[in-house]
């Protein structure tokens, strides 16, 4: 771990609302996408356009016309204050502009100035303000201190969704030529190569072959990790981090074992070799749609009957909530199965059917807790009952582990705290924000470690997994605490024909790049 150049928050036994420190995070700004090659492929101007004020207002007007919700959110706030202590970034940084209401007001005050009667004629009476360079700078800084996790909206009596406001702000900034390097470079790679990492097909094929070797070495069973296999029944779309990083890859190994034991034919696609859709983070419908269409094209080309998504939080939001609108209709898929389906739904189904032989004792060296990923928790469902997105992952964990405990009820389910790196902020140039924003989750985790003997935290999102491996050491905890849910499945599953008596557990919960 690198030495921190900022103060790491103290973890408390009970969560407390810290006093405000105005401007404490005004310096936090991610790298701007200065190179035209990061902007132009997404349809944005290469640099800040000359008439940026005019253009920004014009785009704001366009978004207000397109998304009725945006206008409602900008109009409805009554400043009740219910959201003020709900954002992990406020709790971790103490910067009052990280209170959701203040973050919204950065956009709201400009909206009022240009789009409301009172704001046009009596701006000072209604907190309306011109779009100046200072305001734009605040936008760039603080709309990149929102991970679009939507925890605040759970507590807002009007249901105002700050994520939607921050998405709109980012979209406006992109359209005037002020883009964030991390997200935009990645989206460009998806268009050019097929995934966030920029992993070309030969490297992907080589990596998958390596996994097949590893599983044979470990178990003696030939589990396949097929790529671009035409005629397979299932297309698995998973984050490219699953091919690359740890503990992600241990989850991917688990998906393959489950498919193998279930006896279904499946394939990955080199074209849709990425579940993530950063188009959502930058609030761009056009880019989100273009990224989604790859999945449709891959499904058609390969002739699959089902699409299943791997462990990726925001991908499941895009898949569950928007995919049909973005890239549908999926009438060519088998309607006997959910379109699309989550890997956890699949695995839980197989566990219930009894097709998987499980040896729970393989995970007896762990006491596991579970981190609900924000997009899964607050924007999707799994299975066919309300709250399934909380129940199914826990059911799977409990089916493969003897020791499971939950964290503080105020930090799980729909009240879960963001890992601190979601929404397009998982970049090294925002490390201070990421470490500070992780504080509420770290606090809840440390409490179950001390009180309940928790040794590991399982997650179902590539961003969460990478973020935790990076920030845990700042809080004095081990980076290898974090595990994939399907890694737990992988450890416990006994493959048909698996070498008997092979109880040796390789320590595969290593670190990430």
């Amino acid at each position: 771990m690198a030495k921190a150049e900022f103060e790491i928050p103290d973890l408390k036994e009970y969560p407390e609302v810290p006093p405000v420190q105005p401007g404490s995070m005004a310096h936090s700004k991610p790298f701007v996408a200065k190179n035209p090659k990061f902007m132009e492929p997404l349809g944005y101007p290469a640099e800040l356009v000359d008439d940026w004020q005019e253009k920004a207002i014009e785009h704001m007007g366009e978004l207000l016309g397109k998304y009725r919700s945006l206008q409602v959110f900008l109009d409805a706030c009554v400043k009740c204050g219910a959201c003020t202590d709900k954002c992990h970034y406020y709790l971790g940084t103490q910067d009052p502009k990280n209170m959701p209401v203040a973050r919204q007001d950065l956009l709201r005050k400009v909206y009022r100035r240009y789009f409301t009667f009172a704001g046009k004629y009596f701006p000072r009476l209604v907190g309306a303000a011109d779009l100046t360079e200072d305001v734009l700078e605040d936008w760039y800084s603080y709309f990149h201190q929102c991970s679009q996790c939507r925890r605040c909206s759970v507590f807002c009596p009007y249901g105002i969704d700050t994520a939607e406001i921050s998405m709109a702000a980012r979209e406006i900034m992109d359209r005037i030529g002020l883009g964030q390097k991390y997200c935009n470079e990645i989206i460009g790679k998806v268009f050019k190569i097929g995934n966030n990492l920029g992993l070309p097909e030969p490297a992907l094929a080589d990596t998958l072959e390596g996994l097949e070797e590893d599983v044979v070495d470990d178990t003696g069973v030939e589990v396949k990790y097929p790529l671009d296999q035409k005629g397979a029944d299932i297309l698995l779309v998973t984050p490219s981090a699953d091919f690359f990083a740890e503990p992600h890859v241990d989850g991917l190994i688990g998906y393959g074992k489950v498919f193998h034991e279930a006896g279904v034919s499946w394939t990955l696609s080199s074209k849709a070799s990425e579940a993530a859709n950063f188009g959502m983070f930058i609030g761009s419908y056009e880019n989100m749609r273009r990224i989604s269409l790859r999945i449709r094209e891959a499904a058609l080309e390969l002739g699959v009957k089902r699409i299943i998504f791997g462990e990726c939080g925001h991908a499941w939001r895009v898949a569950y909530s928007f995919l049909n609108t973005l890239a549908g209709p999926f009438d060519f898929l088998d309607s006997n199965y959910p379109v699309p389906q989550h890997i956890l739904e699949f695995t839980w189904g197989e566990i219930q059917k009894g097709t998987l032989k499980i040896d729970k004792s393989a995970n007896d060296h762990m006491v596991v807790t579970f981190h609900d990923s924000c997009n899964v928790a607050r924007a999707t469902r799994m299975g066919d009952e309300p709250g399934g997105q909380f129940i199914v992952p826990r059911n799977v964990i409990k089916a493969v582990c003897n020791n499971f405990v939950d964290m503080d009820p105020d930090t799980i389910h729909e009240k879960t705290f963001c890992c601190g790196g979601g929404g397009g902020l998982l970049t090294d140039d925002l490390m201070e924000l990421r470490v500070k924003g992780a504080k509420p989750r770290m606090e809840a985790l440390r409490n179950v470690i001390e009180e309940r003997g928790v040794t590991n935290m399982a997650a179902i999102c590539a961003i969460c997994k990478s973020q935790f491996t990076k920030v845990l050491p700042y809080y004095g905890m081990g980076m290898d605490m974090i595990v994939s849910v399907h890694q737990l499945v992988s450890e416990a599953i006994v493959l048909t024909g698996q070498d008997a008596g092979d109880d040796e557990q390789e320590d595969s919960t290593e670190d990430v790049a």
Partner: protein
Amino acid sequence: MPIEANGKVFETDEEGYLANINEWEPAVAEAMSKEDDLDLTDEHWDIINFLREYYEEYQIAPAVRVLTKAVGKKLGKDKGNSKYLYGLFPYGPGKQACRYAGLPKPTGCV
């Protein structure tokens, strides 16, 4: 910020990664490591050289598992793990070692 090595100036991006991988020479890695107060040993060079070879073939840095496996094969199983790599490159093998090797930074959810 550009980096000086071997009497030449090399362009880098905001995060200190070499702008043009083809310009790389060993002195670049030496200069970068010096800035991080790290002395490059033969063990470091084994990793850097592997990264460059892999990149040449696949146009991407190897996955962590591919790297640890290759290291394990070459240097013995006890070294084929992330802990060994983090011991050499405390900022993370994927990122710090890639930077020294002149490779672009791995992007995405990693």
